[in-house]
């Protein structure tokens, strides 16, 4: 059987990063064209992909061994609360049912070998709206590889947060107003 291939051209220009690093301060939200932003977001997007497919082992492969998840939420009468999941616990969970988590409008900052990503998201599970919030990730560059060191996220409802700009996913019910 004849196999058709699509060819994707990639040129690895290994001198581009230093010039962009020099031209922007560490407090700047990096533009989408910035090489460091693209590298960091490749890791974050991969993490979302594994979260969505329910492959928590693959997700943990993107994390430092010491990394932690911090789900944070407000509970009536208690104010802010949080729980902690270690990378090892995440890995031990193995697989779970797929969900849809959609991040958008990420703010990315990089200084040297650390990066932060502040990204609104919404989450749909079991065929319906679940919640929305902010994903706040800290990444550390180890050698030439970016890894997630911390994944803190809020769990909220509109109007504190909002749905992804793409709207309701196909086959899902709109959230109650």
């Amino acid at each position, binding site marked *: 059987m004849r196999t058709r291939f699509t060819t994707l051209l990639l040129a*690895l220009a290994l001198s581009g990063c230093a010039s962009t690093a020099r031209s922007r301060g560490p407090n700047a939200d990096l533009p989408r064209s910035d090489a460091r932003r693209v590298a960091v977001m490749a890791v974050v997007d991969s993490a979302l992909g594994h979260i969505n497919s329910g492959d928590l082992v693959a997700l943990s492969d993107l994390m430092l061994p010491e990394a932690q998840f911090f789900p944070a939420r407000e509970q009536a009468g208690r104010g802010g609360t949080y729980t902690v999941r270690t990378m090892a616990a995440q890995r031990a969970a193995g697989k779970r049912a797929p969900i849809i988590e959609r991040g958008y409008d990420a703010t990315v900052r990089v200084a040297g070998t650390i990066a932060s990503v502040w990204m609104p998201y919404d989450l749909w599970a079991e065929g319906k709206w679940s919640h929305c919030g902010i994903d706040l990730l800290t990444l550390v560059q180890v050698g030439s590889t970016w890894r997630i060191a911390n994944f803190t996220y809020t769990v909220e409802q509109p109007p504190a947060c909002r749905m992804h700009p793409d709207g309701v996913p196909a086959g899902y019910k709109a959230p109650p107003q």
Partner: protein
Amino acid sequence: MASLTARTRAILSVLTIVLIVLAGCHSDATNAPPSDGRLATGTWGGDSAGVLVNDTIAHVHVGSTYGDVRGRVPLDAEGRFTAVGSFLLRAYPIAIGPTMPTQFVGRVPGVRAARS
């Protein structure tokens, strides 16, 4: 489904003429990454694409799409590579398959593969 496939192929054919310039993100990026004759392990980014390379796979992100090449990608003496893998056109925010066979072609300027 046939029309979707045709549309997908049409879009991918556009991708074939796009030159994606990736840039290394070492803290001292004026130095090319060490090469053992293969695409260096690490996380690399550029104007519109990022690549996560480890010992078993190269995971390529291009906008809201991604692709995978199994194994380490060999470089020729001029730092060029050609690798066969798979590509998912609609990966984000919601992955919609299937993946398609893809050939990744590129070059790492400034890197010359070690020849014994």
